[in-house]
């Protein structure tokens, strides 16, 4: 016992004040907010999507039960395994083979989460690590062309995202025009809505590209849970309002990404600065899903407000670089995994203000 009177020194700068809300409540409410977007994915893609979700969730639950049994615990009711399985399924395309979904979930639970001690001790988001592992291992499973209920077979989800990137061949067009020129299908509803809007907007000299309505309504090839952007935004806003997630993190993440995409995103197409298609890139890919539901994982994100801002800026920059210049399309999952590794460092430097100096003036 030293003279300071404190005998127990916390090993890490964890939050020590406990609120009235328990961890399982937070986890289940996050899962609940993700369910509408998943349901929309099943509606748009049909039964294959349901099988992928069932496989990923089932595998996550079984792996969690077995690994927790080794520690003589039962942890299925805290919802963490269900949420991880749901997230993995949401990030996978509907054409993914069942065993890929199951292994991605199993990798997430067994290797990324339980190896490091279970819920609260992992330093990387399990669902994203599982999906990236699957994408590295079975890239062909992600290259299956996908058709939606209302639009015909197009490109594979990730190929579409890569094709929409401003390249030398895009001839100064925007992302959606590039896709339309590549023969990318749009739904009948999109043709009607965009045509009607363009007729009204014609006097202003503004024209929406084909596919704009599909992108907003969530009728496009993509991960099962990532296409319903409006439902994802609604879920994210609900979680932020309930204080399950900190609104600052997705706000800074998305703002940084949009700014960089707008300023530098047009360079590849030869359109110069301030000509990037920021709106398309915000809505396309898995960015919104990842930003609202996975980057905000309290276990793998910084603890303090200042750290959260720094983390969000880093996330936005990493997402921009990986999506526009990386070898794997999308970029958002990889950016979060990359930034997860910096969280211990951020937590070390972004310390909360100490209200009282420790007695004895140590340190």
């Amino acid at each position: 016992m030293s003279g300071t009177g404190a005998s127990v020194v916390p090993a890490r700068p964890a939050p020590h004040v406990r609120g009235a809300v328990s961890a399982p409540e937070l986890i289940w409410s996050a899962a609940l907010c993700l369910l509408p977007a998943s349901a929309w994915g099943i509606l748009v893609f049909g039964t294959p999507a349901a099988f992928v979700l069932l496989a990923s969730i089932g595998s996550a639950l079984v792996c969690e039960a077995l690994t927790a049994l080794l520690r003589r615990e039962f942890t299925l009711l805290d919802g963490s395994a269900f949420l991880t399985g749901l997230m993995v399924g949401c990030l996978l395309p509907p054409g993914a083979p069942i065993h890929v979904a199951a292994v991605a979930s199993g990798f997430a639970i067994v290797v990324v989460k339980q190896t490091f001690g279970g819920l609260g001790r992992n330093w990387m988001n399990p669902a994203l690590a599982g999906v990236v592992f699957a994408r590295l291992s079975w890239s062909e499973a992600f290259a299956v062309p996908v058709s939606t209920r209302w639009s015909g077979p197009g490109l594979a989800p990730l190929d579409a995202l890569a094709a929409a990137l401003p390249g030398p061949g895009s001839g100064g067009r925007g992302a959606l025009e590039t896709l339309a020129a590549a023969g990318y299908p749009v739904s009948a509803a999109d043709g009607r809505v965009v045509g009607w809007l363009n007729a009204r907007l014609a006097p202003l000299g503004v024209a929406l590209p084909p596919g704009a309505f599909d992108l907003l309504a969530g009728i496009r090839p993509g991960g099962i849970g990532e296409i319903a952007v409006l439902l994802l935004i609604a879920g994210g806003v609900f979680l932020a309002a309930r204080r399950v997630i900190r609104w600052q993190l997705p706000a800074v993440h998305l703002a940084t990404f949009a700014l960089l995409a707008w300023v530098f995103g047009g360079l590849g197409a030869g359109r110069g600065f301030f000509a990037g298609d920021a709106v398309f890139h915000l809505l396309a890919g898995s960015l919104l899903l990842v930003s609202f539901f996975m980057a905000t994982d309290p276990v793998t994100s910084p603890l303090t407000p200042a750290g959260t801002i720094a983390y969000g800026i880093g996330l936005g920059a990493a997402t921009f670089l990986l999506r526009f210049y990386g070898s794997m399309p999308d970029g958002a999952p990889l950016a979060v995994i990359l930034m997860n590794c910096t969280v211990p460092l951020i937590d070390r430097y972004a310390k909360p203000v100490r209200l009282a100096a420790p007695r004895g003036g140590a340190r």
Partner: protein
Amino acid sequence: MKQGSEIVRGLASENPLFVLFMGMCPALAVSTRLLTSLWMSLAILCVLVASTLFSSIVGLFARGKGARARWLASLFLTACFATCADLLLGFFAADAHAALGLYVPLLAVNCLVTGRAEMAARGQPVGRALLAALGAGLGLAACFTVIAAAREALGFGTLTLFPVGRFTGTLVIAPLAASPARAATFACGGFLAAGYLAALAARLLRRGAGSGP
């Protein structure tokens, strides 16, 4: 008993890879095929033993002449043996030599080889130094074999061995070969395999010691 324990230490309690984390670079880079990693193990073992033996002789002559002369002579000899190993491998096993690339010449500056050679040159008894080098080399070979078997089975769905008679030398694990987890053959797969095996080794060693933290 005493001499046997030097070899056992290299295999277990002072295992270069799983306990001391030495030799990680070749372990991660070249342990994606079983046969390749066997050749690499052989190369390391030979360079390690030869370099230790000759460093002991260097130690006899360099006594009292300062450390720099000893280091220079020792490094020169190690580089010679690494070059020999590289040339011999290129002659006898051209495929493995091509797959191993720069990692055999790089043995000249491998920290495990350098460390063992320095121990010998400082005047460790020749017999003990040789046994310790043998133990370290065998320990590393065991690690390489286990890691490579795990990574090749998961990442390619095969196990490559020597062709003998009608056996082509490659075992195909049917369900894995149809859809292998290619990430196992990347650097991340090497880190994962090494990490899990190091954890397993730590657990076994702790149990073997009877007590521990």
